[in-house]
């Protein structure tokens, strides 16, 4: 049997490779966004691909696929995301980069009123295979408008799928799965994960991860830690600390928020009888509160204690480094939450 080759890639490299492979596989895939290449229109003067997209995720693509498929857009999110909806409705598979999740405020009309609803409103006769990727996470000195996570805004909407990779392996697999999916999919990419080193092997071949399935990244018996994207890594660190104190934590990496793998969550809780839910997003009407409700409604009798949530406060992201540090979800906060259930 042919051995699949794997390598150690960064989060960004893995995403870049996934996008490249989809562009190669399907001529209907296009990429759009602000500076997805950069220096637009100046190739003849020797300038090309200066930005390579948000954090370099689409670097090197314009040289291979040209400006017809790698489209630098003016700063007009409602315009170009709406264009993505129309293009998707008529045969293309656009991948659109929104940049920071907060910019959804500009493009909300197209995402919430059109992308999410057209399939339903038109009686299932139109499909919108649109992928929107956006960047998330506080911790980078960028203040209130450039640091949000905002999962809940999107998961709230029927018609949108939402996925959150937690390492380079899941980043590539979910990127490809999202582009191939016939529904609109939002991918949330933590910029903190982009700066981390991973000891994770990423296959060279294209592969997909199923949208809607969580994965157990560490098995355990005493407490369930629910991670989403970056917080999966934080839960894994906290689990190590718990191990040292003699407790066995199970870490569930959600990967998909809509659809949500309710069974994976419930199954873990049935085993551990205790749950800590971590979520970088705001706490009200959120994925974390949704999961808390899920276990309260469906696993109430087997819980040893009420669910505990570790989230951002109900406040915007502060600029000052000391306040921002306090704002973030940390290993210590997760550890304390787990210990409150275990001791």
């Amino acid at each position, binding site marked *: 049997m042919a051995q699949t080759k794997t390598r150690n890639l960064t989060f960004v490299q893995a995403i870049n490779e996934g996008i490249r492979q989809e562009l190669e596989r399907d001529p209907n895939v296009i990429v759009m966004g602000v500076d997805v290449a*950069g220096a637009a229109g100046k190739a003849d003067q020797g300038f090309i691909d200066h930005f390579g997209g948000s954090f370099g995720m689409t670097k090197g693509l314009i040289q291979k696929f040209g400006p017809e498929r790698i489209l630098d857009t003016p700063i007009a999110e409602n315009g170009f995301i709406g264009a993505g909806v129309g293009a998707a409705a008529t045969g293309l598979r656009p991948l659109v980069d929104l940049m920071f999740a907060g910019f959804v405020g500009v493009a909300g009309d197209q995402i919430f009123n059109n992308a999410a609803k057209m399939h339903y409103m038109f009686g299932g006769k139109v499909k919108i295979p649109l992928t929107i990727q956006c960047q998330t996470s506080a911790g980078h000195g*960028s*203040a*209130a408008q450039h640091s949000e996570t905002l999962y809940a805004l999107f998961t709230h909407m029927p018609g949108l799928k939402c996925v959150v990779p937690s390492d380079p392996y899941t980043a590539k697999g979910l990127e490809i799965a999202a582009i191939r999916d016939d529904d609109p999919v939002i991918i949330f990419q933590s910029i903190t994960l982009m700066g981390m080193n991973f000891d994770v092997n990423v296959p060279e071949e294209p592969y997909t991860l199923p949208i809607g399935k969580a994965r157990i990244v560490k098995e355990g018996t005493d407490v369930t830690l629910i991670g989403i994207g970056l917080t999966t890594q934080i839960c894994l660190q906290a689990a190590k600390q718990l191990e040292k104190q003699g407790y066995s934590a199970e870490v569930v990496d959600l990967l998909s928020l809509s659809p949500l793998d309710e069974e994976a969550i419930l199954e873990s809780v049935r085993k551990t009888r205790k749950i800590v839910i971590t979520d970088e997003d705001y706490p009200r009407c959120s994925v974390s509160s949704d999961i808390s409700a899920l276990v309260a409604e469906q696993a109430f009798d087997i819980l040893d204690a009420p669910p505990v949530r570790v989230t951002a406060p109900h*406040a915007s992201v502060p600029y*000052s*480094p*000391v*306040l921002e540090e306090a704002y973030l979800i940390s290993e210590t906060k997760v550890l304390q939450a787990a210990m409150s259930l275990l001791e």
Partner: protein
Amino acid sequence: MATATTSSAITKDKLLWMYETMVLIRKFEEQARREQDSGRLRGTHSAIGQEAVPTGICAHLKDTDFVLGNHRSHHHCIAKGVDVNEMMAELLGKVTGTNRGKGGTMHIADITKGMLGANGVVGSNIPVATGVGLSAKTRKTDQVSVVFFGDGAAQQGSLHESINLAAIWKLPVIYVCENNRYAESTPFEYSVAGGSIANRAAGYGVPGVTVDGQNVLDMYEVGGEAVRRARAGEGPTLIEAQTYRYFGHYGADNPLGYRSKEEQDHYMSKDCIRQMRKHLTESKFATGAELDAIDKDCHTRIEAATKFGVDSPFPDLDELTTDVYIKYP
């Protein structure tokens, strides 16, 4: 392109104020870059090269008038009179900052000086400025609302919606596009159909003026007419100020990845401060020594601002959740 009348119509005080303001901005921004390079400030959008644009406009404004900015807004703030000590403290995340350390480089605001805030979302402040104009008109004050935004921002729908509103309601709003030729690395020529932002004004029946944004006297001239119109109830003006940012878009971005050294040299040779200095000395409004004294004074003020910022305390941790609401519950 609009050109300046002779500066003889302007008082010496005003001329020197404009020179001093541009120098103060330049020195503030040079220090901000040093703070960024040292890591005390985690990144900033430098306004070096664009000093003349808000200076020429704000020379006509009072504390009671309003200015709204964008992500690259330190120059707007200083031209509107925001205290450089408090600005530097804000950049460093200190509680003595304009925003108590909560907003940082992209959100500086000081309502007491009429600075209603920088804004990190491109194009987002343009409608807000329109509402400020509506407020002034409704309250029957003679206040003027000025919003600064980039050539990139001019592609957002918010500009179209706003100018149209301001035109039908004759609001005292001045839309100032700082066309520094690039939005991140995207050239103006690529993203602007028709090749002009000012020309769009014709469609709304309002004046659209293209002006050399590296010449503060030209800016002053154009700003004067726009402010006069606004105060007289004649409605909005769209100004496209052609300018240049000397450094990269943000942080350590190297602009030579999307523009040539020759192009940079061309624009830098028309530096706004050097031009003004030459004008003031050649037309005998000021001596070189007088201007040197202003330079030195600005330098001292920025040194003091940095010391103030560095020495100031960080906010207390309980500030994390204050200011979200005025009263809750």
